[in-house]
C-alpha cells in the first residue's frame, strides 16, 4: 500500500476528491435531501396566527365518506403508486409518524405551509408560508400540478401531476386517511 502513496500523483487523488465532491451534491440535487436538521419549530400560537383571519372550514369534519371500495382503491393507488403521484415514497400519513424524507401529510389541510415538526424546509417554502400560503384543496391541487412553477426552488423533486382526476383522488385520500 505504501508504494501507492509514493507512486501516486496529485492528479490521482484529485480525481477521487472531485468524484467525492460530486457525490456529496447529488442527493440534494436528485432527491432534494438536506444533510442537516436545522428546522426551528413554530409554536402553536404562531401557527394559529397564520390562519386565524382566513376563516377556513374544517375539511375533515365536513368530509362525508361516500366513497365505494373501488374509489378507495383508486385513491390509494393515486397516492401510492410510481405511476400515480409517488407521494407515499417520501410522505407519511400516519398520526404517530415523524417527518423523514418529506413532511408528514397527516391533517395537512387547513395548515400553513412549512410548519411540520422537525423538518428542514427550503427557504422558498418558508417565504411562501410568511406570505400566507395555507394548504387547502385548491392550493395543494395547484402545487402538485406543477411544484417547481408554483413554488420555485422548493425541494420536492417530482414532476407535476398533469391529470386533474389523479390530483383529486390524492386530495380525497389525504382527507379520508386523516379522519
Amino acid at each position, binding site marked *: *500500500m505504501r*508504494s*501507492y502513496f509514493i*507512486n*501516486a*500523483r496529485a492528479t*490521482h*487523488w484529485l*480525481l*477521487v476528491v472531485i*468524484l*467525492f465532491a*460530486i*457525490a*456529496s451534491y*447529488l*442527493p440534494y440535487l436528485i*432527491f432534494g*435531501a*438536506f*444533510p*442537516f*436538521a436545522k428546522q426551528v419549530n413554530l409554536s402553536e400560537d404562531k401557527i394559529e396566527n397564520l390562519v386565524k383571519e382566513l376563516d377556513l372550514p374544517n375539511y375533515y369534519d365536513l368530509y362525508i365518506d361516500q366513497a365505494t371500495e373501488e374509489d378507495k382503491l383508486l385513491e390509494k393507488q393515486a397516492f*401510492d*403508486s*410510481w405511476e400515480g403521484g409517488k407521494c*407515499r*415514497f417520501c410522505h*407519511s400519513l*400516519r398520526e404517530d409518524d*415523524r417527518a*423523514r424524507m418529506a413532511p408528514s401529510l397527516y391533517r395537512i389541510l387547513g395548515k400553513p405551509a412549512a410548519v411540520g415538526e*422537525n423538518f*428542514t424546509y427550503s427557504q422558498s417554502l418558508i417565504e411562501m408560508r410568511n406570505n400566507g400560503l395555507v394548504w387547502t384543496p385548491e392550493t395543494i391541487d395547484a402545487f402538485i400540478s406543477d411544484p417547481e412553477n408554483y413554488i420555485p426552488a422548493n425541494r420536492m423533486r417530482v414532476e407535476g401531476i398533469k391529470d386533474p382526476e389523479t390530483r383529486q383522488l390524492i386530495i380525497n385520500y389525504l382527507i379520508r386517511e386523516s379522519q
Partner: protein
Amino acid sequence: MDNQFTQRLSSLTSWLVFILFVIVFLNMSETPRIPTESPEREILRSFHLVMGSLLLVFSFIRVYLWLYFPPQNTQRLLPDQAYTQLHILQFMLYISFIAQGLSGIFTAWSDGLIQFLPGADTVNHSLWVTSGYLHSVFAFFYLLLIVFILLFRIYHLLRYRVISINIFA
C-alpha cells in the same frame, strides 16, 4: 499467511463483495418503487440491512488483505502510473463500501430499526438526517468510482492492450 493462500482469499472476498454489491444494488433500485408502510417494503428493508451488513464485513476483510498484502501489477504492458491510478480507485471503492455500511448502521439505529439494547429509545432525528444523507453520498460515490474504473479499463484496453474484466480487483 502464505502468499498463495492470501491471493486466493483476496480473490474470493473480491468476488463475494461483487456478488453482495449486485444484490444490494438491485435491492436498492427496487425498494424505492415499493410504497412505504407496505409489507413488501418491510421485507425489502430487512433484506437490505442483512445484505448491507454482510457487504460491510467482507469489505473490511478485503481492505485488511489489501493493506497487508497489496495486489501486484502482473500486467507487463501496463505502466506503473496507470496501474496505481486504477488501484487507488479500486481501493477507494472498498473504503466507500465500509463508509456506506457504517453510515447505514447509524441511519438504521437512529431510526429505531436496529437496537443493540432491547427497549432502548434510539430514535434521533438529527443523526438520522445526517447519516442518511451520508449513506446516499457514499452510494453515489461508489457508483461514480465504478463508472471511472470501467472507463479506465476501456482506456487501458485501447491504449496498452491490457484486458481485465474484474472491476473489483
